[in-house]
């Protein structure tokens, strides 16, 4: 509290000092003559722009290299590499423009500061020049559009037939990950069934749909390397966004409107750990669309592994259907087999 008060007092003092300096300089200007003081102001500000240009350009280049280590590592997906190249070409198109226009802007500002001896040059337009700087940006932009749309169609185009199907269902504030099991098909579901079966049916799966029987839920998103994976994305409450930064994957989860994203992971978690020399590295799944007060907390670990490891992991997972049946059995305990059958029937009719 004390530091806050001291800080505020300091700030107020600085403001008062600047105010007094400014008032004094105004009086000085009336004494010395308006022209002379304006002349000084012109020189000072022109110089400041020049310094700003130099320090600004040096600073922006320096800081880019300084922070480059913290940027996301080389993408771990096939389309991520395309996007990385696209980013590079966009840099090639924009950085020179950034530098040249800024040099022109601030250098002209400096050079053409007011002088009694200079007359400004009456130069209202030059059609040729304007045509040049209309056509050149247009061409560059059309090239970027072409490259962009080409990649966009490849990325959003149909997933390969061999893709493994995984589902991500968002809710406040977690991701539910469902694997399609042996049939590689997700069973149907409805929000009306959510929470049924003693709270075990978290997604509202419909048990009459046999495709559901081999589906299982997982706490981590496990993916085999170099295999296309098609993520079916949806939400049961508000908007969320399925975001895998290392794979350059992002797609909104929309209640009522299923979305999807397919990609091919190209590096296992283990490879990344070695490459980055960080034994605790993990791929992460996050939410990228504001979804409420714990939006920043929707984390899941993503594990990319060799296919054999993946299959081993998959073999250990228990289907939701089996879990529900087991729980029902445990509950009825001593109940007869006939009753058990009844229960299953009841469950299926949901």
């Amino acid at each position, binding site marked *: 509290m004390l530091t806050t008060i001291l800080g505020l007092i300091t700030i107020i003092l600085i*403001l008062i000092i*600047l105010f007094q300096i*400014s*008032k004094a*300089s105004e009086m000085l200007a009336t004494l010395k003559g308006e022209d002379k003081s304006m002349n000084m*102001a012109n020189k000072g500000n022109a110089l400041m*722009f020049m310094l*700003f240009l130099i320090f600004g350009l040096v600073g*922006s280049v320096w800081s880019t290299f300084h922070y480059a280590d*913290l940027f996301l590592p080389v993408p771990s997906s096939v389309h991520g590499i395309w996007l990385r190249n*696209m980013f590079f070409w*966009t840099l090639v198109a*924009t950085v020179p423009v*950034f530098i040249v*226009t*800024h040099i022109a*802007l*601030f250098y*002209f*500002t400096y050079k*053409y*500061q007011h002088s009694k001896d200079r*007359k*400004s040059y*009456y*130069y*209202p*337009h*030059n059609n040729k020049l*304007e045509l040049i*700087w*209309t056509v050149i940006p247009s061409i560059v*932009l059309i090239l970027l559009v072409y490259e*962009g*749309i080409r990649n*966009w169609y490849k*990325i*959003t185009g149909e997933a390969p037939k061999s893709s493994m199907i995984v589902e991500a269902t968002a809710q406040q504030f977690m991701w539910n990950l469902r694997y399609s099991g042996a049939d590689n098909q997700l069973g149907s579901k*409805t*929000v*009306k069934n959510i929470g049924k079966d003693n709270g075990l049916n978290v997604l509202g799966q419909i048990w009459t749909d046999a495709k559901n029987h081999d589906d299982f839920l997982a706490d981590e998103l496990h993916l085999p390397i170099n295999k296309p994976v098609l993520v079916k994305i949806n939400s049961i*409450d*508000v*908007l969320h966004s399925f*975001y895998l930064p290392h794979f350059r994957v*992002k*797609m909104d989860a929309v*209640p*009522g*409107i299923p979305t999807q994203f397919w990609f091919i992971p190209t590096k296992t978690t283990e490879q990344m750990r070695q490459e980055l020399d960080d034994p605790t590295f993990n791929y*992460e799944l*996050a*939410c*990228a669309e*504001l*979804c*409420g*007060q*714990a939006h*920043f907390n929707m984390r899941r670990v993503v594990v990319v592994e060799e296919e054999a490891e993946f299959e081993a992991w998959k073999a250990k997972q228990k289907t939701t259907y089996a879990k529900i049946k087991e729980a029902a059995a445990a509950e009825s305990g001593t109940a007869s087999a006939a009753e058990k059958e009844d229960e299953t029937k009841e469950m299926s009719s949901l």
Partner: protein
Amino acid sequence: MAGTKVKLDTHTGAHDHHHDDHHDHHHEETFISKYIFSQDHKMIAKQFLITGIIWAFIGVMFSVLFRLQLAWPNESFPILEMLLGGWAEGGKLAPSFYYGLVTMHGTIMVFFVLTAGLSGTFSNLLIPLQIGARDMASPFLNMLSYWFFFAAGVVMAISLFVQTGPATGGWTVYPPLSALPEASPGSGLGMTLWLFSMVLFIVSSLLGGLNYITTVLNMRTKGMTMMRMPLTIWAFFFTAILGVLSFPVLLSGCILLLFDRSLGTNFYLSDIFIGGEPLVNAAGDLMQGGSPILFQHLFWFLGHPEVYIVILPAMGMVSEVLATNAKKPIFGYKAMVLSILAITVLAFLVWAHHMFISGMNPFVGSIFVLFTLLIAVPSAIKVFNWIATIWRGNISFTPAMLFAIGFVSLFISGGLTGIYLGNSALDIPLHDTYFVVAHFHIVMGMAAGYGLFTGVYHWFPKLFNGRMMNRTLGYFHFWVTFIGSYCIFWPMHYMGMTGVPRRYFQFDTFETFNVYQDLNVFITVAAIVVFFGQFLFVINFFYSAVKGPRMKNLNPWKSNALEWTTPMKPGHGNWPGAIPSVHRWAYDYGKNGHEFIPQVVPNGAVDTKEKNTKGAH
């Protein structure tokens, strides 16, 4: 109309003999009709501006408060508890109030400060003065426009004090989050008030916009052809058209959202499980068939033109100030007008670039890529033309000029990053990261703010009876703000390139994003410095409005435009005698050795060898 004119003329006659600050009983204007329910466009401009400044203070202060959380997530700040009470128990911001601050910051800055405060102020002040009209086409609607804005502000301010807090869904208020009170405390009464406030605001904006368009089209003085208008007027004109055509769409979006919230409809809701049960309609059936994406379309159909509504007036004023202070005609006047036109048309065709990964059909996305990158062309033309305008000029560095140059720099920096984000494929990794935050704050927030400062410093004498602002304070203000704004927003590009998502309360849950602690501190410190730097402006503004020295001559910047032909204290009606007529365009600077030739100077009156001059108008 003629009758009004006569009446206005006698009005101004009365003004000339009396000081403004002492009341005169012969005068028919009362305190209320002069200062509160005024129909004088200059007074309404001041009302917009001062209300805008108050909102800017609130909006920017909110950003400083939530920046504290981002820089020092584990620290406690007793001052927060003092200011916010239960929302910051133990000096630590509650997540839901953090999102409330973020939402209010965005809403206030975009709508109340940069739309009403910028376009409202300067369209009102400059349209009649620069086209040579005594007032707006309908001064009464103009007055209503301000008071609807005021009412919108009151409702929004009330929403800050309700028990469940203000809206927390971000300034874009995407449903279902904003539609379901169960989804977030801020989606309760706070959200209803947000929508109600926005409806009032849209009414205000439409009343203003229709007035601006009518005035520009019908009330130009003799000789003021469209192609002789200063670029400021062109910018206000197209801004108004954009607003009139796009705000109603937001209105419909807001009203449908109100229906979903209170009347049990489901325009935006489908297959939702919230508060422990499925969302059903009155008949008990599951709500299905609504589309949250529909709201995004309706929102961004305004939301994107909105950024041009914010930036075009700034561009217009910057063009005017650059030409005036460089003492050169604006380069490529026709191209400038055409590029404003092109931006206005294209502005309607780019809205879905905010929605590339919203679940919208990817084919639709690709069309929006094309238009989005096309809009960079007129923007680029404008930048090149501004630079060509100062080339071989004779530049006086008034504070307005500094902000105009700063504007060009920011517009370049922020515009270029738009090329990344507007390309749908590249938008996949960058969407909703700090890269976006950096982009729109630089190109829209900061740049438009600089436009506002440019306008205030330049036209201050026209706002406050010939008083001038202190130049030196203006310089301090500019340099703190200019260096500071790059320090705040430049580093955010780096965070974006690490994929750090925006609207995160803290980053420690994720190893990937939790790598910028020192940079977050740096940004917050810069934000605090810039925030307090703005007091240099506020002090200067209010001090000069009361005690600033009056300008020594009626045209302190040696400008060609018409507003500088009005008297020191123009009354209601602007010109005491007849309205001057116009004989040339607004940009005869440096022509035939004349530093400037005001628009009112007839052709034979100055030594002109126009026929021999290159590109004469």
